[in-house]
């Protein structure tokens, strides 16, 4: 478990460090980034329900946004 955690942390650190050196994009180079499927959550209702189900059935919680509260399911 610790080895996997260390490996993932290392990969993410390298990924983020390399991200800092990217060349700025011109507006017309951002077309692919504007595709609906490039959103963090293309279907908000599906993401909300999935998060709610996993929150109810697993011990883990928390993600990349705040908002929403608890329920009697957990």
């Amino acid at each position: 478990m610790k080895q996997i955690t260390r490996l993932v942390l290392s990969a993410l650190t390298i990924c983020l460090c390399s991200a800092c050196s990217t060349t700025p994009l011109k507006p017309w180079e951002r077309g692919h980034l504007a595709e609906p499927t490039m959103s963090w959550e293309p279907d908000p209702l599906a993401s909300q329900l999935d998060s709610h189900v996993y929150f109810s059935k697993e011990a883990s919680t928390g993600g990349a946004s705040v908002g929403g509260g608890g329920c009697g399911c957990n």
Partner: protein
Amino acid sequence: MTDSKQRPASKALQALTAAAMSLPAYQVAAATRDETARVSVRTALYDEAELDSRQVSSTTTERYDIEIGQLRASAPLGERFSVALDVAYETMSGASPWFVQPDADGAPVQVMSGATIDDARTDLLLSVSRYSASGRRVSVSVGQSTEDDYESQNLGIEVEWEDDDKMTSYTVGGGYASDTITPTDAQTRFPSRPDEEDKQSLTLLGGVSQILGPKTVVQTALSVSYLDGYLSDPYKLVFVDDDLRQDARPDGRWTGAWTTRLRRRFSSVGATAHLDYRLYGDDWEVVSHTVSLSWYQDIGERVTVTPNLRYYSQSQAFFYRPYFRTTRDDNLYSSDYRLSPYGALTIGLAGEYRFDSLSLTGSIEQYESSGDYALGSVVTENPGLVDFTLLAVGLKYAF
């Protein structure tokens, strides 16, 4: 280079810029308002699989079925604001794991709640966002979740802003929730249940999104929460030293989650890949890893098909056992399968069909959990681990 040669290039640049600016709002890194009003509705059926009768010591092996209806409406408001309303209504019915006891050989067997439980939940969340010309978004949300025996109110605030080159955006946020539980039958059939308890939770979040290239963007975020108050499950008992006690957990919990998400467009094949990873840990000694991968495949102009895969693995809470042969000095006990060590696999398929402003959506997910799927070795699997199927269909309309 002469002026006469510069002018055509400048016009071309202006045309390209104008075309780029007319693209749909890019919501990944830039805090840009969606200029389209949208309404989505969705209905879903959540169906838990029956338990293995060999691991159950009660007449029923059936578990929960939940029917869910969802609505989301969002729209721009004035020149700088947008508003979104999310509503969910659930009706649930079935039996729930009650406690675990040893059989004659010492193997853990599940005892289910005797009577069928019926309940309904209504969840409302209203969000208002303000967008500034400099590319900053401030969102405030307020929500409420109501059940027969449970009430939760929550508040959230998020601020997002971007660098001058619009390649990096930053998010900070905070959330607060206050919950009250009034367990049913606490004063009649089950006097050991508390009459009323409450808890509060506070969450702080910080995140960075970075465009890595014309087709790739990554986001990483760290959230830290503290939960304070009644964190036990009043509907669960624990087998301790040949006796049954109420589930009893610490009255505080620190949690941390580090989430990283990658989006990559493969334009040559008309597809987008989503790769998400979350590392979670808390002071109950639960550590978990969640990895999910989705592949959004466009088929022509109107159809997108999305197979997805999710893997989850968690370690157990320090006060968890399937059952307890002896008492603990700290008087903390839980046999809840959700605090046991296990792993889970979700396999899903979603689809979307678009007519002009209207889209039809549908999805199916199958979730299976097992001690065998855990990253570490699990000596004794909890007999209450859940498997479920989630089916959903929906409509989206853009005005």
